[in-house]
Structures are given as C-alpha cells and as structure tokens.
C-alpha cells in the first residue's frame, strides 16, 4: 500500500522538530539533577558544576593550582602541579572520577546526591 505525505503531515513534523530543537537548546542551560561534576579538595567541596558549564576552572590544592576543563559534557585535568601527572594523562571523562593524590583532588563526573535526598544542609 502506498502512503502519501500530506501538507498536514509536513506541518506537524516541522512543529515537532521545532519543539525538539527548543528542548535541546534549553537543556544546554541547566542539567538534570544527577548530571553534575563535583570537585573536592582535601575532602571539602570546592565546586558543583553542571555538565553543560563549559569552561576552565582553577582549583587551589596543597601543592598548587590544578586546572580543570569542562567541555561538552566531559571533564579533564588540563594541568596539574603533581609530579607524575597521572590525573592529566587520564584525559577526558564523561562519567566516573579523576583523582590527584598529591594535590588531594577528587573530580566526580555524573555525580548525584545521596539516594532520596534533594539537597544537603552543611
């Protein structure tokens, strides 16, 4: 059986495409509650960032400044004062952790709050 595409079909598809694109654009402005990047130094939270927050962030640690970069939903250590640079060599991470022991730094990508909790009062 041959299906004919009508003018209405085209209009509906265009509207759907526009709705999808708007949603996609809006999604760039904030994140779902479990798509966070947290940066802790010496067990203390320094940053909570959305995966969408592209940028370069300098984090002060005990041996110097670690430079962290977020780009298109992934995170990496761009530069580090640590001697072996394992954290830099780990490269981009979308989900998981980057740890720099000498500078006491833990980056968690795709982090979420403890189960059943919407916020932490600290």
């Amino acid at each position, binding site marked *: 059986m041959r299906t004919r595409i009508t003018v*209405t079909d085209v209009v509906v*598809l265009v509207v759907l495409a526009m709705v999808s694109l708007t949603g996609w654009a809006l999604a760039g402005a*904030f994140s779902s509650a479990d798509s966070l990047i947290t940066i802790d130094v010496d067990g203390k939270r320094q940053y909570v960032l*959305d995966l969408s927050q592209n940028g370069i962030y300098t984090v002060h640690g005990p041996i110097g400044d670690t430079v962290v970069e977020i780009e298109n939903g992934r995170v990496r250590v761009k530069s580090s004062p640590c001697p072996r640079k394992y954290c830099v060599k780990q490269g981009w991470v979308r989900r998981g952790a980057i740890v720099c022991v000498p500078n006491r730094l833990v980056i968690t990508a795709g982090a979420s709050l403890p189960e059943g*909790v*919407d*916020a*932490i*009062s*600290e």
Partner: protein
Amino acid sequence: MKRTVAVLVFLSVLLACTQQKSLYRKTEFLMDTIVSITFSSRADLPAVDAAFSRLRQLEKKLNVFDPESEVSAINRQAGIKPVAPSKDTYALIKRALEVSEATRGAFDITVGAVSLLYDFPNKKIPSLDQIKQRLALVGFRLMKLRKGEVFLPKKGMRIDPGGIAKGYGADQAAKVLKARGIKHALVAIAGDIKAVGTRADGKPWKVGIKDPRGGPDDVYAVVSLPADWAISTSGDYERYVIKDGKRYHHIIDPHTGLPAEAGLVSVSCMGPEATLTDSLATAVFIMGKSRGVKLAESLGYGVILVDTEGEVYVSPTAKAYTKVLYKPKVNGL
C-alpha cells in the same frame, strides 16, 4: 494523517511523563558559595534565572569583602556619618537586630569588628590582644537605625552579615519563584535551604544534614521539609584552622571574640523563614543546647544538633520530620 496524529499523541504523553518524573538543577557560584535551585519542569527555567538575578543583585549589596557593596559603605562610614542603603540592606539589618535582641546578642551583626580579624583561607588567627582591643566595638545596641539610615557610631565598628545574608537570599529567591507562579522548587545557598511548596508529586523535599566529620556527601540525618519551610546548618567544620592542637572555627561568640565553645559541633534549625533559620543556627551554636533549643522552640522552630560527644538531639518541633541515620563519629578535633 491518522498515523501522524497517533505519533504526536504518543510523543506528547511521553514528554508529559518525562517532565513529571524529572528534577532539574541549576547551579552557580554566588555569595561566596555554591547556590543551586532544584525545579521540576523545564518551563520553570525563566523563573529560576530571575531568582539567580535577584541573588546576584543581593550579593552586590551585601558582600562585606566587596569594597563597592552597601555593607562596606556602612562599615567605612563607621564613626563618621549615617549611610542610607537600599531597602534590601536596610531590611536585612533591621531583621538582624531583631534576632540579636531575641538571642541577647548571641547572634550579633556587629560581630564584624572581631570576626573579620580571622583570615581562614590564609590560616591566620588574631592574637588575644587584638581581639580584646576590638571587643568594645561589638554591640548591636550601639547601632542606630532611623528613617532608612544606618549608623555605626564608633570608628572601627563593622557589620558582618555572614550569619544571616544567605538565609535572606534563600527567602528572596523563593519569593521571586513564587511570584512567577512556581509551585515546586528548592533553593539551596550552601547550608541554607528554602522550599517552595513540596515536590511536584506532593511529597516533601528531603534535605540531608551533613555529617560534621564525614565527607562532602555523608549525611547523618534526613529531614522531610514541610511545604515552604527552610533549614539551615551551622558547624565548626565549614571554615576552620587547627593550631596548636585546637580547632579555631568561624562561628565567633560576640561576647568573647573567640570561636564558640558551647559543646556543639553542628546545629540545624528548621522553620518557615530562612533568614531566621540561618541566624538562629548560629545563635544556638553559641548559646549551647539548653538555652538555644529553648529559644528556638519558643519561636516555633525545630533544632537538630550534634554535641562534641557525637550525641544527636532532635527537638520536639523537628521530631516529626527528622530521621536520624546514624550517630556521627566526633573524635577529638
């Protein structure tokens, strides 16, 4: 055509289901801390952005470390002349003085003359002599508030809105969200959290209270926040320096100029107004369990606290909403 309509209906239902289940969060670094607003629909984003704009506006007025702020202007003119700040700054100071009176100075916005001597990021603690010299400049009753003007009558007096500004910010952000028709959101300015209504499913927002000696995500208790209520926590672990085997934390007792030593390590207060939960948490920490809880309960506010032995106490007003998960290990420092 029928097939297209069917697809459209299916997609609409799918979108509606997704939107109901999702929670979204927008986070910014503001007021010298992490601020996040959790909301339940993508359509709420313009209102959330308006709430963040409001907080940026408040930060410019209230930041004691920004020489351009209204608070800095008031401090600079101490002993010289009165300053007429914006309605926001005036309202905040007025509320702070009311809390100072109610807590008999355990919370005192003029503590800045002493508290600003402590430089925690650079691990610098003032000497006892320095503290002694400045103590005479602390006293909320000295402050003059009249016809929109604020005056600190002695040179060297300083207001430090640190123990109340974040709560005020949370209240103001919630007010913006409500005015724009948002019914379900949670504003969190570090430890100061204010609910707008409940979650979209009608259940209360759940707030974890940080384990005072645990990692960033360790919570020892969970509070189911009644609609439109707030919760704030003050602890000796937020900013501190360990020197000569002693913990010097940022909650300064206005009567001594020293970090409060009332046998507590963490105090959370809950009730309708975040401005009050913020300042009360500080006051209870300084006053100690017995006097502090009595005061908070008399105002209809609940308290959850941890003492230096790690014992958890939940006051009557907080009891129905609080689930204690475990007893925090508070060993020595």
